[in-house]
């Protein structure tokens, strides 16, 4: 039966040796690790003021691409949340504000300048040093950000990892699954989530097919 062994691991990536598993199942795990593992990123932005050189939509797009360390045990996807509110509740949204102004000197606004509404939240940008925008003297931005859970199939900004599957050199029957995290979640967690999602999908498929076939 299936055998898994970790051959290489660091905080960003993971190499797992897989034995006695159908190629198609290993490939399904790989695909799910890319497109269906939930992560968190900015989904909605309320722009209060933007006198910078960058148009609103370009600035919003740049901010949306910042990966956030994701707490997927606490937060759920908005469409799965019970609140039914468009703005979201404390189980489906994390609010941030971004305020910056250049006085006499030009400044660069970084991801560390994003201020969470709840100072104790663990949901924060993966790095404090991501440049967002440069402001010339007297330019100002002020906005409210809504960080939500999503998946890579909805938008690539939520893609949890890069995953590849290949044969191990000179050892027939052994495969290597390589998972490199973008930073949202630790690579082990991504693997676990991908397998959980696979199992859930198989259960759903079985239930639906057997239900339709009647028995």
């Amino acid at each position, binding site marked *: *039966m*299936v*055998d*898994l*062994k*970790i051959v290489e691991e660091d905080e960003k990536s993971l190499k*797992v040796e897989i034995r006695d*598993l*159908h*190629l*198609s*199942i290993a*490939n*399904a*795990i790989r*695909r*799910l690790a890319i*497109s*269906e593992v939930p992560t968190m990123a900015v989904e909605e932005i309320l722009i209060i003021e933007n006198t910078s050189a960058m148009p609103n939509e370009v600035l919003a797009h740049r901010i949306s691409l910042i990966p956030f360390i994701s707490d997927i045990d606490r937060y759920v996807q908005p469409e799965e949340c019970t609140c039914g509110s468009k703005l979201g509740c404390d189980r489906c949204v994390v609010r941030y504000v971004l305020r910056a102004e250049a006085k006499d000197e030009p400044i660069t606004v970084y991801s560390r300048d994003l201020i969470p509404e709840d100072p104790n939240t663990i949901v924060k940008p993966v790095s404090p040093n991501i440049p967002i925008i440069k402001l010339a003297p007297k330019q100002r931005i002020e906005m409210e950000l809504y960080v939500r859970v999503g998946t890579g199939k909805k938008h690539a900004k939520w893609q949890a990892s890069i995953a590849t599957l290949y044969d191990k050199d000179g050892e027939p029957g052994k495969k290597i699954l390589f998972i490199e995290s973008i930073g949202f979640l630790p690579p*082990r967690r991504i*693997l*676990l989530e991908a*397998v*959980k999602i*696979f*199992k859930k*999908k*198989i*259960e*759903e*498929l*079985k239930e*639906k*097919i*057997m239900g*339709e*076939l009647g028995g």
Partner: protein
Amino acid sequence: MELKITVLRDEFIEIEVLKEDPAILDSLAEILQNIEGVEYAGYMIEHPLTMKLILRVKTNPAKITAREALQKALNELLNISNVLLEKVYQI
């Protein structure tokens, strides 16, 4: 996932699956192909943008009906995913 059975005979079943990753059906097809009596098992992607998949299973009814083959394959696939999840918890 949305599912509709479009052809249902003893030796042949065709199922339309909507809004699902093709890799899931690929796993099911591979398991089906390894079952004794299954003559054909495969799926096609109608169009990459419509997310509509069509799964087809043809068997030799003297050995196994298509319904039994599907049931067997789904059970086996579920067993494998249970074992896989246990192994992932262990590593």
